[in-house]
């Protein structure tokens, strides 16, 4: 339990440090492959064909095509997009 609390504290500290940094000028969406269940719903809503399955069978966003519309983050049943 102590380890978990320490880890949460480290992570929160990390977030505070990074929140102190300036934010980038445009958004970027990515997919947490540990949470993705490969359902493909994000592929079906992406209006610019920027999402497909990658080498581990999980969805991947092609950053050269993504227009940051955010439709995929709404639809993901596993909330894997961030």
């Amino acid at each position, binding site marked *: 339990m102590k*380890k*978990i609390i320490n*880890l*949460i504290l480290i*992570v*929160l500290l*990390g*977030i505070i440090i*990074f*929140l102190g*940094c*300036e*934010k*980038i*000028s*445009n*958004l*970027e*969406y*990515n997919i*947490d492959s*540990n*949470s993705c269940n490969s359902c*493909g719903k994000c592929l*079906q*809503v*992406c*209006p*610019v*064909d920027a999402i*497909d*399955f990658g*080498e581990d069978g999980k969805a991947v966003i*092609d*950053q*050269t*095509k993504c*227009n940051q519309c*955010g*439709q995929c*983050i*709404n*639809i993901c049943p596993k*909330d894997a*997009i*961030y």
Partner: protein
Amino acid sequence: MKKIIVIFILFVILSIGNSEILNWSQISYQAFLTGSSDDIDVVTSASPNANNTINTKLKSGLRWQHEFKRNFNNFNISFDNNLFYSEKSHESRNSFLFNDAKLKLSYFPNTHYFKLQYGNRWFDEDNTRILTIPGTEEITKQKMVHNTELQYKSNGKKLKFSFYGKLRNLDYDYFVFDEENSNDEFARFSEWENDIYTSAKISYEINNLFNIFVSGYYKDDLNESDLFNHRKFGVGLNYFKKYDFFNFLNANFYYYHNDSQRISNEKTHYFLTQMRYTKRIGTSLSGFVSYINRSCYDSKQSKLLRISNMLRIHVKYSYRLDTFLDSYVLTGIKINPENKGSLIFSELNQYFYKNLFGLFSIKYADELFYAFSTGFEYYLSPVKSFWIKNEFTDFKKTPTQNIIFIGSTVLF
């Protein structure tokens, strides 16, 4: 029709034999309702006369998913198919009739792994929306996607190597306004978009806890333009501590150099940090804490910039009320301030009586949506069930949607 016959023949061929076979099949009917009181245009053709105005009434759909796996000694063959059809509705989706099929062959002798995969995604023309491709601003309609993939991994004692290559061919039509035609018509042309994705990674195990790695990624838009090309090259450090079978800590730091016309110069020097701690207490309580940070160094401004942070905490409590299957309560939080993706969620899967389970879940994302679902699942056996589920989502910026699913899942 031809496609369905080919899929059926493939399915029969793969099913013959005495080796270990696994089939998973799920069929469901869905009824889609929306909170919107306005009709919408689902634009499936560039011709101004061909747009369908969709009313707000109940719309029906069907989905069939099948997964087939067959294992030999060091050989695995699998075939997945996902067929979806729905009446055109207010639902946010590009196509209302498509089929997604994948055939995968893998071979894994000793410390090696080979994979060859072909995927085909087909979209019905009359039920697929018109899309605009950014960068080129072309008005397009997807017809078919072919994905051919090759993967190799070598897991030596200290040294590991992996390679991945994918050829993606998109068959699409694009539309150009026909100025010579007095009827405001669009001329239609067929085109292929070909992309090749390759990546390779070499990692070296320093000791039981640490390994270092170098990796490269190259994406080439094989069509004339270099606009969508992308190169990445980087180095990283991975830490993995396994306390026992269920409890472990994995952390890694990765720096890479980004090079693409479509990616802003701010992101040339890119940093990715990931941590995940998984813990299980007794047989009932389990959970994990996961944190991902993406940031970059802008050399022009000499500043470290944050791209996104995501913290996720999950806790699951499982309990058995009968000798059948586990019931559980799961709750968690995701914090993602940069993309406004922060949310809390909770899920309950509760055994009621005689193989009947109740499902309830709620999800609240302050800036994106609020959703809840309820349902019942009745198990004829641990591998055969019928279910009914209702999913309601309030998308805040777009009309609410309510989908009722009735389906069956079978494993054989």
